[in-house]
């Protein structure tokens, strides 16, 4: 059943329209991967679903209820959690403190410090370390753990592999695959098409603010995504 619904969303950054009439649905337990070039609007779309950026037009619905005007911190309580690009931890706080802050502002549920540390065993010996002292991969695990602490119904992940060593990316993705198996509902932005095709139940490709191609990994080939990604089959009206 549909958990998250985005209807004709327009989002602007001042003069620039970053998201143009985007609509899609995300069902319970689905993983949708957004791919697209720089400036395609992926991050802006995620941020407006999280409530961090107010759209110019259109609607965001959770469980059929319009939350377009609900502020970001209230959306966390309704079950939307964003793992932002660049992780954005509190660097002066410990791993555990970062987790607890999120936990105090989320929903009740199975995720707590204990279960997060079980899901990300690499964090267990680091729980009293300052987040700013961690490696990129450890910080990314903390950022995902922090989002889980709110017991989200929809997890929004923005470029979790950005700036990480390949080994660290593998680690983050192993944890993600476990989450997906456990039935989590995830919307993720991923530049690496191979990874997106591997973990996602559906892929959507964005080009200049619009979703130009959508389908299951079985329906889409690398060639079709590449074509949509660069928009080479499109011609600008003369």
């Amino acid at each position, binding site marked *: 059943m549909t958990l998250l619904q985005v209807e004709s969303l327009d989002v602007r950054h001042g003069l620039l329209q970053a998201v143009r009439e985007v609509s899609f649905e995300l069902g319970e337990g689905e993983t949708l991967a957004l791919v697209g070039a720089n*400036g395609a609007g992926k991050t802006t779309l995620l941020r407006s679903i999280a409530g961090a950026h107010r759209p110019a037009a259109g609607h965001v619905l959770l469980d059929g209820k319009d939350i377009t005007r609900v502020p970001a911190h209230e959306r966390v309580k309704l079950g939307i959690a964003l793992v932002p690009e660049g992780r954005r931890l509190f660097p002066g706080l410990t791993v555990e403190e970062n987790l607890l802050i999120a936990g105090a502002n989320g929903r009740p549920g199975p995720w707590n410090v204990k279960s997060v540390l079980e899901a990300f065993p690499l964090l267990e010996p680091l729980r009293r370390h300052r987040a700013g002292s961690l490696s990129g991969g450890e910080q990314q695990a903390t950022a995902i753990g922090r989002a889980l602490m709110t017991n989200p119904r929809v997890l929004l992940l923005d470029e979790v592999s950005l700036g990480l060593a390949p080994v660290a990316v593998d680690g983050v993705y192993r944890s993600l695959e476990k989450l997906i198996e456990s039935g989590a509902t995830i919307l993720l932005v991923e*530049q690496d098409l*191979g990874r997106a095709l591997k973990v996602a139940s559906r892929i959507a490709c964005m080009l200049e603010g619009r979703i130009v191609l959508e389908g299951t990994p079985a329906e889409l080939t*690398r060639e079709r995504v590449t074509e949509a990604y660069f*928009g*080479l089959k499109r011609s*600008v009206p003369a």
Partner: protein
Amino acid sequence: MSDYSEQRLDSRTGFDVASGVVVSSPEEPAGGRSVPLLEAVGIQKRFGALVVLNGVNFAVGSDEAVGIVGPNGAGKTTLLSILAGAQRPSGGRVLLRGDDVTGAGSARRCRLGIARAHQVPKPFGDMTVFENVFVGAAMGSRKRRSEAYDRSLEVLELCDMLDVANRPAESLGLLHRKRLELARALATEPEVLLLDEIGAGLTDEEAAALVVTIRELRRQRVAIVWIEHIVHVLVQVIDRLVAMDAGRVIAEGAPDEVMRDAKVIDAYLGSAGAVA
């Protein structure tokens, strides 16, 4: 450390040791080729420990339009800044008609015929559109007042901005701001125009209008170097495409061939074979 000395060698020979390719105009015989209008040879650029450009060779001929693509962090804008004289390379040289202009700042290069339109337009906000363009015409090519006036009107007409000529620049929307950025650069009467993502955020109709304008510039024999993420717009105007990734040129040639190149697709979308 041996890598570094190899790169130093690169910058003298113009030969990319790592990929084994002479990057500029490989189809032309080395002995007989004409001097490019603007050329960057063995460009290195470091910001502290971060190597942003690593032995880049780039050339544009007069009457040629070259596109540059590549994922974020490839070094495209830094290369453009070095061509424009806004940044000094850590190694390598910039040549204009064969003359070394590496030490010349951007104001001097502008008068020598290199103009740049920036990714984020920053007009003089409290001046009118006409006044902004007039500054380019008067200062960029040291024209007399009446000549600069005529040139400004010509450029405003070409960029379809006559109807907003008397508006303060700060009142303009995105499309007009981008056009003004282009007009200011054109007012200096460049021989080569460096464009940095001037198509971003435009609607399809606006992008089509931009293509018409750039084609007109080509008709006027202005050489173009254009960084653009919107590839399907870019390929309508350019003769040759250069793809960059992580501070290097990874492919170069006919636009459709470069965009089909597995190295280029991998740079954007991750390696095809990497995830089992």
